[in-house]
């Protein structure tokens, strides 16, 4: 078991009138190597669930265990450190740093970890090679297509071999062909390195390939 959510609830707002129950007593277990999609209409609570998993927010009640360690009780800085050590992120709009080249963007988590430059070079070039854009390593994001940028983003998310990668609508901005290529890439990384992928998505193409689907509505897992 990689992540375990026990009776997690999240309430936004302070007064009775303004309170919104984004998550209602959610229980979810994520195992190592899972390839899972969280789906649901807008406002169903999937983003809140993803944010809880990432440690970006803490639940109002309940527990979140990551490798049997509670992360909901960690401080803000400890949760940042936890994300750096254990997680990778893929965003809908890639979120690459525009002033860094593809290789430097991939290097980012390793640099933040304070690894030595030789190892960083080896790992980042390997990650770029795995996602098939080694030849674009010196290009800046604005010099690449959306699909290429998303590949850089994926390389960045897996370069430090995290246990868990959270991807928020990773194919939403891509054309069909590129989206399929990206999905294939996720699948190959999942199979090759046993990295756990959790997607928040509306994309049927992606849903067709995941091994597990978690449906959400009104803050509850159906």
């Amino acid at each position: 078991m990689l992540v375990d959510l026990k009776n997690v609830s999240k309430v936004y707002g302070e007064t009775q009138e303004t309170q919104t129950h984004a998550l209602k007593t959610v229980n979810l277990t994520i195992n190592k190597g899972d390839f899972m999609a969280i789906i649901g209409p807008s406002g169903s609570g999937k983003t809140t669930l993803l944010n809880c998993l990432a440690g970006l927010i803490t639940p109002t009640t309940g527990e979140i265990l990551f490798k049997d360690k509670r992360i909901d009780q960690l401080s803000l800085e400890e949760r940042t450190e936890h994300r750096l050590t254990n997680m990778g992120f893929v965003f809908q709009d890639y979120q690459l740093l525009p002033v860094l080249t593809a290789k430097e963007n991939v290097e980012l988590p390793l640099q933040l970890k304070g690894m030595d430059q030789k190892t960083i070079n080896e790992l980042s070039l390997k990650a770029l090679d795995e996602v098939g854009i080694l030849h674009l390593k010196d290009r800046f994001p604005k010099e690449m297509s959306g699909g290429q940028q998303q590949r850089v983003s994926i390389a960045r998310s897996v370069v430090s071999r995290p246990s868990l990668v959270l991807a928020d609508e990773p194919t939403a901005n891509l054309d069909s062909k590129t989206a399929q290529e990206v999905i294939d890439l996720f699948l190959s990384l999942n199979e090759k390195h046993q990295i756990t992928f959790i997607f928040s998505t509306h994309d049927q193409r992606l849903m067709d390939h995941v091994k597990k689907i978690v449906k959400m509505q009104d803050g509850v897992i159906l």
Partner: protein
Amino acid sequence: MKNLGFLLKYSLRNLKRNPKRTAIIFITLAISTTFAIWSFNVNESGIGESVNEITGHYVGKYQIGHKEFDLFSSEIKMHRYLRGDFELAQSPLVTPRVLSPVFISGEKKTVGALMVGVDPARERSLTTFYKSIAEGNYLLDDSVSNPIVLGGKLANRLNVKLNDEVVVLGQGLDGSVANDLFKVVGIYSLGGGDLEDRLMFTNIKKLREFITMPEDGYHLLVGMNPTAYEKIDQNKVNIMPWEKLIPDVSISLLFMMKLNFVLTLIMVFVISLGVSNTLFVSFNERQKEIQSLNVIGANSTWITLSLMIETFSMLILAVITGSILATVISNYFFYHPIDLRLFTGGKEVMIGGMKINAMVKVNNLLYSHIISISMISVFVALSMIYPIARVLKRSKRVS
């Protein structure tokens, strides 16, 4: 900190994101640095020159007298004087003076004035008073046994001119009446200042004789270099710095210095508000990127450092540029002095009743660079606190 190179690379490249905005902040900071340094240079040089000129003229940078001799007391204690065995007396760094309040009579009028006995040769090597002699000489003619140099105003009041004789009536140190006939050998002019009416000069030897003071006695030692008295026992004598001797001048100059400082401070403060606003806009535009950095695992320290490096590198470049520009401009105005009469409608510039040289040579002073750069750096550092704090706070908010 590990991997500082990567942090520097990221921070410095951010400067190129919006070249126009970076250029505006850079130019603003460089120009304000130049102006602040130049303004301090002009002020310090002008004031420094004025102080040297005013003190070097007559008062000196300091005066040393007997512990109980007080120039500002209603009764000048003439019998409290120093002797030749005082360690500084023979030093070429000082000139001795003897003072005596007297009455002086011309053809039809008698007025009170202060007679100052000076050693003409030593006086000439330390002060520039001799330059004020409008007629005659400054006690250079040894053949005249009772010479006297009067101010233009006093000479007019007494209706006397060069080579006329005047009667001087005073009091000896033993309490006896002293009187003698003096010959006017010189008339000085201070541009109509009050001193012209109050001070007159004679040979120190003559005045000692006049008031029955021993040959090695004197009331004051006047000097320009304060290091001269550093080693003497300051408990035994009364040391009066120029600020106490001419407090009105000292206060005026201090006021000018402080006013300049405050005005520069206000200018830098206003500029820093502008810089703060520009930084705020700049950081705010990158809010989403900074948020992503936080999600990926960059902690607050890393993000803060990156923003600080970005701002400080720009600041460092700007103050270096400003400093070089200020040096060039100050050097130009050193060789092409500023004429203060431009600000007085062509009239002479007077301070403390004395005419001063209106041409100000601007010196490039290290002090001006240090104070200006420190001031701007502190304000810029303060100005980035709010933009950084806000962007950090918002980066932790999850949408």
